[in-house]
């Protein structure tokens, strides 16, 4: 018996795995954002996988000269290739046990992948597919007095019940260029998503209930504050103090048949001016705690569809 060799049998250095990894990442991101990107990722991954495998198998006896006599004299393999393949070149002309071993592993891997892929997709995909929201009717325009915030709560999906209840602070700003102007602020704190409260009293006596929508006018409020970690905002939703990283999110809105409809929410970095003349710096909806402008926003380059 010869003592086992002491040299590490590692493949030579190769950059292809890096390219393969990049391709795999592009593929997975592509599955979420667009099939074109996924296709591109698949092509990159396949190309680099081919190069990588070619690199690994280059110089091994098995791929290039399966019929050569086994090297008896040499203590180690001549070329720095994987030990597994050089070990398979033994007295046996056809390394059948090796073939069976590899095909068992390969087939097992394929079967495992076929079983696992749909299960993992089932776990992950529903969180990202078919997101977005329908428009919600939150009552006639006459329920919104000029210059006052109204606390409007509604169910974004009445089939789900109370768990889907959302709150918006709605203020009628008077007409702008002949059309009604509204400020519709979401109550999700831009710090970590707690519900911000109006800093001022509510007129509970004037509460209105229409289907799943409740409307409570405020008297006059000095802004919004978050009960969790003390973030404060002014009446336009700009952060004035505390930990929030941006202004409060807003809802897009539309008016149909004299009713106000809330659409998709969007994020706001800050608002210049007030009321109907305000200039809103608008961004795609981001999760709480993520800056949407400035250097720090580079940490969150891709938002999932929502």
């Amino acid at each position, binding site marked *: 018996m010869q003592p*086992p060799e002491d040299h590490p049998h590692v493949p030579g250095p190769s950059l292809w795995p890096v390219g393969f990894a990049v391709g795999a990442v592009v593929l997975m991101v592509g599955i979420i954002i667009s099939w074109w990107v996924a296709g591109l990722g698949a092509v990159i991954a396949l190309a680099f996988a081919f190069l990588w495998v070619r690199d690994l198998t280059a110089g091994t006896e098995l791929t290039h000269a399966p019929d050569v006599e086994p090297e008896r004299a040499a203590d180690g*393999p001549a070329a720095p290739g994987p030990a597994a393949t050089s070990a398979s070149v033994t007295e046996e002309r056809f390394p059948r046990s090796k073939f069976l071993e590899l095909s068992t592993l390969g087939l097992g891997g394929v079967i495992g992948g076929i079983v696992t892929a749909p299960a993992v997709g089932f776990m992950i995909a529903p*969180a*990202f597919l078919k997101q977005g929201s329908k428009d919600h009717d939150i009552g006639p325009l006459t329920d919104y007095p000029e210059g006052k915030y109204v606390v409007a709560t509604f169910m974004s999906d009445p089939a789900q019940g109370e768990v*889907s209840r959302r709150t918006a602070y709605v203020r009628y700003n008077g007409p702008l260029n002949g059309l009604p102007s509204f400020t519709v602020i979401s109550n999700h704190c831009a710090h970590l998503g707690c519900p911000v409260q109006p800093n001022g009293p509510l007129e509970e006596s004037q509460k209105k209930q229409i289907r799943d929508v409740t409307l409570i006018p405020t008297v006059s409020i000095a802004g919004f504050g978050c009960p969790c970690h003390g973030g404060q905002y002014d009446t336009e939703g700009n952060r004035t103090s505390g930990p929030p990283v941006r202004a409060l999110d807003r809802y897009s809105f539309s008016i149909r048949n004299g009713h106000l409809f809330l659409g998709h929410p969007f994020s706001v970095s800050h608002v210049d001016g007030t009321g109907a003349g305000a200039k809103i710096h608008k961004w795609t909806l981001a*999760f*709480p*705690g993520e800056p949407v402008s400035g250097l720090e926003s580079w940490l*969150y380059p891709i938002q999932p569809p929502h």
Partner: protein
Amino acid sequence: MATQKLTPKEQVQEAILYPIDWLEERSGLVGGIKYFLFRRVPGDINWFQTLGSATLTAFIVQALTGSILAMYYKPDPQNAYSSIQHITNDVFAGWLVRGMHRWGASVFIILMFMHMGRVFLFGAYKYPRELNWIIGVLLLTMGLAEGFTGYLLPWDQTAYWATVVGINLNGTAPFLGPFISQFLQGGTYIDDGTIARFYAIHMLMIPGAIIALIVLHLYLVIRLGVTSPPWSKEAAGTGSMLKPSRNGRRGLTRPGPRRKG
């Protein structure tokens, strides 16, 4: 059958030993359990070295009480809170089992940290036990994840808003944060599916991982033995504990090509 008549005492012994011998002959389990329980340990170990077993016991209590609570709990937004009320107020000893699970969760976490502190202060994380420290850290992470996912299940105001904050904290991780948030919520907001998702993670996925890691953790404890306290008079590392096994590998090396003869 027997030429010699057995005394009553011997008959009783025979009756007890027979099934044990039967099991041992067919499985080797008795020897295995003896090997596990009656290992040689340093003579000067002390009570601090029972913290690991205490943590294991706390986990077993959590697993058992959790399984029983699952028989009465309903993981959906309409019924979760009322099913918890039902468990606490109506089900026989429900308050006790829920209390054990609720307080046992804190006990489990506290014991994990105390065990970790003992290992750190005794230097028991050093060669050759580094891997067991790493597995322990994974176990700690899993335990904290259990705490996070379990906190939502009572579905009261504290549970809901603590989870909102926790999910959004995860969301502020660079690059992948928004995706982690959306994965945890199962959508853009906490909704119908979130509570069932947390329930599945809390009672199926993470406990499975914890059990697998505990098995590895214990395997390494048995393989590497228990450390002496730092004040031990015995010189460390004199035993044959680290004798490499015959086909063991050193570092990155592996055996060369197999040859005949």
